[in-house]
């Protein structure tokens, strides 16, 4: 790969990562707050207690700020597909386009319609209709996320398609296999719960700030109850769905699992590293250097999580590159070199197919198509030169994964402690806990970002697992141009983030509509 295209690949990756990361600062709070608002409003409709109405309206205002500033930031990712990743965009065809189109329609019609009723409809529609609108905002934003995640899941586990050498596109042959793949629904659940987690921790943290300031304490306790409940459920469900994710990663992306665990040499009955530090002296996957400076391991757990068998063999990086280990279906894993040969065979068949078609040799073209199909599962390996290229950034994946898990367990503990103090009715006097809840808000965002780092860095070098590596997916664009737009985006998104934080902090300091709320309190 020449220097220019290497630069284009890296800048395109950096730009996509930057945009996705910023986008993901807005999305989780939108989905998480939508649920919390809906629960609060449900309590209002059920009990008729006006305090819940004003509590709900306050969080609706915060939701509105986040939604207005964050809306459409994801569109920029779609711009990038057409410019920086045009080979990829063409190659994936309607498989990627269909979920995104459905997402666009749902996002526009469902969210736009019901958000307008939610904001403008108080006193215009009945309580129940308004409540239904609020719930449908939550459903709409979740469905919107579902289709985006279906598209992402397909890249991690491509199913339901057939490659057409004539159009050079993967064409969808089974919509439901794409939409309901086990990776897709598990990813949807795990990601959605991470949004709830952000919403819950945000509400609990902001409510704690009011308690610290001794302002709107009734409102703060109400918010803390719902925020902590949603947060606790979310983090527990994240642990459960995280187990599902680990299982699917083990089956479909074993290199990612090896990177998450820093596992270089596979073994039977592999343990899960609870805490560990990687050895920076390890520079090659096949050197004899110990990969860890230290590690605390839970015996057999990785085998159990990944293969539902405490004695199952979990392949390490070296095994995946060298091949030869037994697979779940009874076959033996191919080495990188074997897959590279097959990948090149598939690519050559694509070239030969085209020549045969142009020369009118249809029978030959049909034979080349058969060879292409037989080897298509290894297509992407034909773009790689060495086994090292198969290995993602292990320290980044390893630390991101472990830090994310630690934050998750920290939050479960935090919410349990908050519930204990709420139950004892002395939460408003427990200032240390209020400080912890307040200053922990960024941790839930960090955990969400780390989750995406694990998912996306851990699957490198692939844009589509085993089929298309990033260096083949990128357009023939100049690295300098992408660098320029990278800087533009960094400025634009930072501006939006500053606007979001400034406006939100101002509204939080202002608090719920005092006149309305305290009129009810008195």
């Amino acid at each position, binding site marked *: *790969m*020449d220097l220019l295209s290497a630069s284009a690949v890296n800048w395109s990756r950096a730009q996509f990562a930057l945009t996705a990361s910023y986008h993901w600062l807005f999305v989780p709070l939108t989905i998480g707050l939508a649920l919390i608002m809906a629960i609060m409003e449900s309590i209002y409709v059920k009990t*008729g*207690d*006006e305090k819940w109405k004003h509590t709900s309206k306050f969080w609706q*205002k915060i939701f*509105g*700020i986040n939604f*207005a*500033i964050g*809306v*459409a*930031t994801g*569109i*920029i990712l779609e*711009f*990038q597909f*057409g*410019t920086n990743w*045009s*080979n990829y*965009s*063409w*190659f994936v065809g309607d498989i990627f386009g269909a979920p995104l189109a459905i997402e666009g329609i749902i996002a526009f019609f469902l969210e736009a319609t019901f958000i*307008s*009723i939610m*904001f*403008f*409809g108080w*006193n*215009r*529609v009945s309580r129940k209709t308004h409540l239904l609108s609020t719930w449908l905002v939550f459903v709409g934003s979740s469905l919107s996320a579902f289709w985006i995640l279906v598209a992402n899941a397909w890249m991690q586990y491509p199913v339901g398609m057939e490659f057409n050498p*004539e*159009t*050079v*596109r993967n064409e969808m042959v089974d919509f439901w296999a794409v939409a309901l793949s086990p990776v897709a629904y598990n990813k949807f659940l795990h990601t959605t719960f991470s949004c709830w987690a952000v919403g819950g921790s945000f509400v609990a943290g902001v409510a704690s700030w009011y308690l610290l300031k001794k302002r709107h304490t009734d409102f703060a306790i109400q918010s803390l109850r719902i925020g902590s409940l949603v947060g606790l459920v979310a983090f527990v469900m994240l642990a459960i769905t995280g187990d599902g994710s680990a299982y699917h990663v083990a089956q479909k992306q074993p290199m990612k699992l090896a990177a998450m665990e820093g596992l270089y040499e596979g073994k039977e009955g592999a343990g899960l590293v609870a805490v560990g530090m990687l050895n920076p002296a390890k520079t090659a996957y096949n050197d004899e250097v110990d990969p860890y400076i230290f590690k605390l391991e839970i015996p057999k757990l990785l085998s159990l999580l990944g293969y539902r068998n405490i004695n199952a063999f979990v392949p390490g990086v070296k095994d995946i590159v060298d091949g030869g280990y037994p697979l779940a279906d009874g076959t033996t894993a191919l080495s990188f070199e074997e897959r590279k040969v097959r990948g*090149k065979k598939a*690519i050559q068949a*694509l*070239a030969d197919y*085209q020549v045969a078609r142009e020369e009118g040799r249809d029978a030959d073209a049909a034979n080349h198509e058969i060879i292409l199909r037989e080897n298509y599962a290894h297509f992407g390996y*034909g*773009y*790689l*030169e060495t086994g090292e290229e198969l290995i993602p950034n292990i320290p980044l994946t390893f630390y991101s994964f472990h830090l994310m898990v630690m934050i998750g367990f920290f939050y479960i503990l935090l919410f349990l402690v908050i519930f204990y103090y709420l139950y004892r009715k002395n939460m408003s006097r427990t200032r240390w806990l209020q400080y912890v809840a307040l200053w922990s808000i960024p941790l839930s965002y960090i955990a969400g970002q780390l989750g995406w780092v694990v998912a996306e860095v851990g699957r490198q070098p692939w844009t589509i697992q085993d089929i298309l590596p990033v*260096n*083949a997916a990128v*357009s*023939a664009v100049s690295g300098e*141009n992408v660098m*320029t*737009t990278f800087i*533009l985006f960094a400025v*634009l998104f930072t501006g*939006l983030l500053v*606007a979001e934080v400034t*406006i939100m902090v101002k*509204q939080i300091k202002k608090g719920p509509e005092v006149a309305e709320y305290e*009129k*009810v309190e008195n």
Partner: protein
Amino acid sequence: MEIEIMRPVVKFNWFKMFWDGFTNMNRLSKTLWIVAIVKLIIMYFILRPFFFPNVLDTTYDNDADKAKHVRTELLEKASGAE
């Protein structure tokens, strides 16, 4: 507890809801609309046409040429990996 005053049932009017909503916006809502609109203008009228053209759509007129371009790219990149 405040007693809720029963409002007379009036026919729901979409247009009136939007009209009243937009004409009675508070300062926060106006600020948010300005931020959202400026952002969308920057995205659709500056970034997209000047910095993010669709490479295939702007270079080729039909799908056959686009497919040919991508095929050539894929084959050339594979030969570069030899």
